[in-house]
């Protein structure tokens, strides 16, 4: 009996369809783990850092659906508006050329807008390593 059973076992192919399935699943898991490890975390949200005269005076989390104005005692003429679509922009300034307002909305990590005469600067940063999230390094 034992000999027959061993013979029958010996006749079975060493690698059967179930084994191939296990092999496939393990390979798939390894591949997914590898891809997950290599991919940067998707940006959960960005922060607009607002500087006056080189000093950070406000950090605005750009959350979906939140819309409001930001005013600053340092420069009462400056109005920065946070939009519901996770962008932010200068909307009012007493500067001569209004380049700041015309820069429009920004929201991507790495982008920035400035009101040079009023020494105001908005920089968008990702929640994690900003440079890794940036699709572009700079904009011309």
């Amino acid at each position: 009996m034992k000999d027959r059973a061993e013979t029958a076992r010996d006749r079975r192919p060493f690698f059967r369809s179930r084994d191939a399935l296990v092999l496939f699943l393990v390979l798939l898991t390894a591949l997914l783990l590898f891809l997950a490890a290599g991919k940067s975390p998707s940006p959960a949200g960005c922060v607009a850092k607002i500087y006056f005269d080189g000093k950070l005076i406000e950090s605005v989390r750009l959350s979906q659906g939140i819309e409001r104005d930001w005013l600053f005692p340092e420069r009462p003429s400056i109005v920065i508006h946070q939009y519901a679509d996770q962008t932010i922009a200068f909307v009012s300034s007493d500067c001569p050329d209004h380049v700041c307002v015309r820069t429009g909305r920004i929201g991507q990590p790495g982008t920035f807008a400035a009101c040079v005469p009023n020494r105001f600067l908005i920089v968008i940063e990702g929640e994690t390593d900003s440079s890794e999230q940036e699709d572009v390094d700079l904009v011309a």
Partner: protein
Amino acid sequence: MGIRGISEKKGSAFSSAGIARLAAAVILALLISAFCCLPLSCRAANQTASPAALQRFEAFITGPFDTAIKVILFTAGEEEFNAYRLFIEEEFWRLHRLFDIYHDAPEGVNLKTVNDHAGTPVDCPGELMDLIEFGIGCGGEAGGRVNIAMGSVLSLWHDAREISSASPDRAYIPDQKSLEEAAGHTSIRDVVVDRARGTVTLKDRMMRLDVGAIAKGYAVEKIARQLARRGLQSGAIDAGGNVRVIGRNEGKNKPWRIGINNPLDNGRTPLVEIASVEDRAVVTSGNDQRFFIFEGRRYSHIIDPTTLQPAHFHDSVSIIAEDSGIADFLTTALMLMTEEEGRILLGRFPGCEALWVRGSSVTMTEGFRRFTGQAGD
């Protein structure tokens, strides 16, 4: 039969032979996984090896050339970065003061001095003579479409833009008669650079120089070259649409990706293209930021020397070139001519490539298209 079959399968899976096969399959799979991932892991390690040696730092410099300048540098550490940043900041401010036409420079002679003393020779620093000669050369190449001696005309438009932007109810445009009178004092032949004596003379007393079309790009190029000479391997300077990169992006181990601004951005499509470049300048001039509105019409800050009126051919022009000063000049020149004329002018500047935006139309030279990674037509 079906139930037996399941039973049989269960039996085979958990029999000693089944466990052996399963273990073999798992070990084999792990070995294959490890083997497959090995080259990729090595590549990833190589990618991070460089940033481990060179760290990414960035800073903003607000003020010089009336713009916010973003600097990204890969250096061995914060101390080295701070030394570079200080150098860049001081250089931008120094060149800003040297090329300033509105304020006197504490260092001494600057461009305002030359304008203030029109009619008489002015002892000039060599760097100022370099810029003026560069500007004269640009004007010659562009058939006079870019003219640094047009300050008297540009000042009329500058005043109109500032007043109209600050107080829309007082908006106005300069009258054509005043513009034509001012244009009588814009002959580039009246700008005399005497290298032997170290002087610049504006022979026309009413002439005023204005280097706004070239100065920022020229300064960026000058600073970028000094950084490269000092050993910087990887960095980028963005001076308000005037981008110059050194080497490649060490952090990503690939060329720098420079977005081309959409001058008609409605908040949804901020970029019209993305160019991948190394050791290049990418510069854009457009009508989207520096303009004013009068009677419902938009007036650009770029003025055509032939009509004395604002540019109207394109919404923006972007140039990729090795030299940021050349790129800055070409964006202005090409804004002031048709695309066909622009392509002819580009033919005299090997290696310079252009992209034009007019409304929803985006066109570019084949060379520019290659920088975007798209196949040629």
